[in-house]
């Protein structure tokens, strides 16, 4: 029992040091801009199809599922607004971040772990490159910047899914749908939701990098770090989300 607690605390301390190191390294030159662009491409652009499919289905399903309850109140005309608010405030950021953790988190975890166990990281250090800067900083920055963009796109596709969902059983024109959406959505729905996605992206990437960077030797280590990257990355999303909702509630509740 004591050993479990100790190892947990040790892990936490190492992660903390890892984060501190990130902030130290991120602001000091030299900046690996070309590697950053490459990572942005792999992390952001290549995740888009996955995010788009998930977003579309979430919008569609949420609309269809909400319709009976709204119909009970005779409020089916509120469906676009309600679905839009739930997508923009919560579903969009969290679902996108979870998908992102599954795709990018496991990728980073496995990649860094295999680099570690095949001693590529050590080799890099010998050759004079700062492996932390080259591998970790670029990936974390890329993920932090790309996830918000993915969430915006995912929200847009999700709203399109909602539009399709509304039109399966009812008839709402394209203009009226967007009018309804923008009628009910306000800035305090959009900005807190967007700000928290930066934290989602950061935590997913930094946890995955940490897990990969500190992988144990052997191929087992690769699997284990890929696995725990996804698990802790997803968990961190929910923890951050819970904190974010408290803070939002504190400042933005009318």
């Amino acid at each position: 029992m004591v050993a479990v607690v100790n190892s947990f605390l040790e892990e936490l301390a190492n992660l903390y040091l890892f984060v501190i190191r990130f902030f130290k390294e991120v602001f000091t030159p030299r900046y690996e801009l070309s590697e950053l662009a490459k990572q942005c491409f792999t992390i952001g652009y290549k995740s888009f199809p996955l995010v788009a499919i998930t977003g579309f289905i979430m919008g569609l399903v949420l609309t269809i599922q909400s319709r009976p309850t709204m119909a009970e109140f005779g409020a089916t005309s509120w469906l676009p607004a309600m679905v839009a608010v739930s997508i923009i405030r919560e579903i969009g950021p969290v679902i996108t971040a979870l998908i992102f953790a599954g795709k990018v988190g496991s990728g980073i975890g496995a990649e860094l772990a295999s680099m570690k166990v095949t001693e590529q990281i050590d080799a890099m250090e010998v050759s004079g490159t700062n492996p932390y800067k080259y591998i970790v900083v670029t990936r974390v920055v890329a993920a932090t910047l790309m996830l918000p963009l993915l969430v915006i796109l995912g929200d847009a596709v999700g709203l399109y899914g909602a539009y399709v969902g509304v039109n399966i059983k009812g008839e709402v024109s394209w203009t009226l749908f967007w009018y309804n959406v923008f009628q009910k959505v306000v800035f305090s729905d959009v900005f807190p939701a967007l700000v928290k996605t930066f934290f989602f992206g950061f935590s997913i990437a930094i946890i995955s990098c940490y897990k990969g960077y500190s992988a144990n030797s052997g191929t087992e280590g690769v699997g284990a770090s890929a696995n725990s990257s996804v698990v802790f990355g997803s968990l961190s999303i929910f923890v951050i989300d819970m904190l974010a909702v408290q803070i939002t509630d504190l400042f933005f509740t009318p």
Partner: protein
Amino acid sequence: MKKSTGDKVKLGIFIVVSLMLFISGVYFLGKKQQLFGSTFRVVALFKDVSGLQIGNNVRFAGINVGVVKNIYLIADSTVRVEMVINDMNRKFMKKSLTAIVGADGLMGNKIMLLLPGVYTAALLENNDVITTAQPIGLDDILKKVKITSDNAASITGDLAAITKNVREGKGTLGKFIMDDKFADNIDHTFTNIKRGTDGFNNNMDAVSHSFFLKRFFKRKNKKALKAKLKVTKIEE
């Protein structure tokens, strides 16, 4: 190297598209809140705004023309409501406008309704104060309903007292409906009347045969007979 350039272009497109989406979303949200575009400000003073909130729509002729920008108390019984109105509709905003607080449906948000006044009035200037009318709140309606129901209660109370009296046989109506003695009396009265009229008939009979009036009745009979004969003759 070539592939990497293509990737960068794709990444650029990805970033531009998502930022454009975000900016257009922000623009549409801001447009609704009248943050962009030229507007002018109108002030109305109310005693009670019955739950109007900042950001509620201002409606003129059924069209949203602006939003409520600011609400605050300036005295014990005066609430200052500032609204911004789209410049597009400025030429219809006359000084004779009346503002009232209405509701958007039974459960909907409060809205600020602007009612048109005199057609010839001058146009509103920025920060002009327009006249207001106190909205008919639910409280007022309930007050009226209370008066009506109080009246109804007193009426039904009176009715109850009357029926109680009737049941106890008090008063004319009560006697009429509930009193057996009264009914017997009426019965007796009718028997008496009947007896009286029988007696009267006998008296009349006796009178008609009496010496003084014999001639009168005979003459009357004769006249009637003659008239009858005449009629039969004409018929023939």
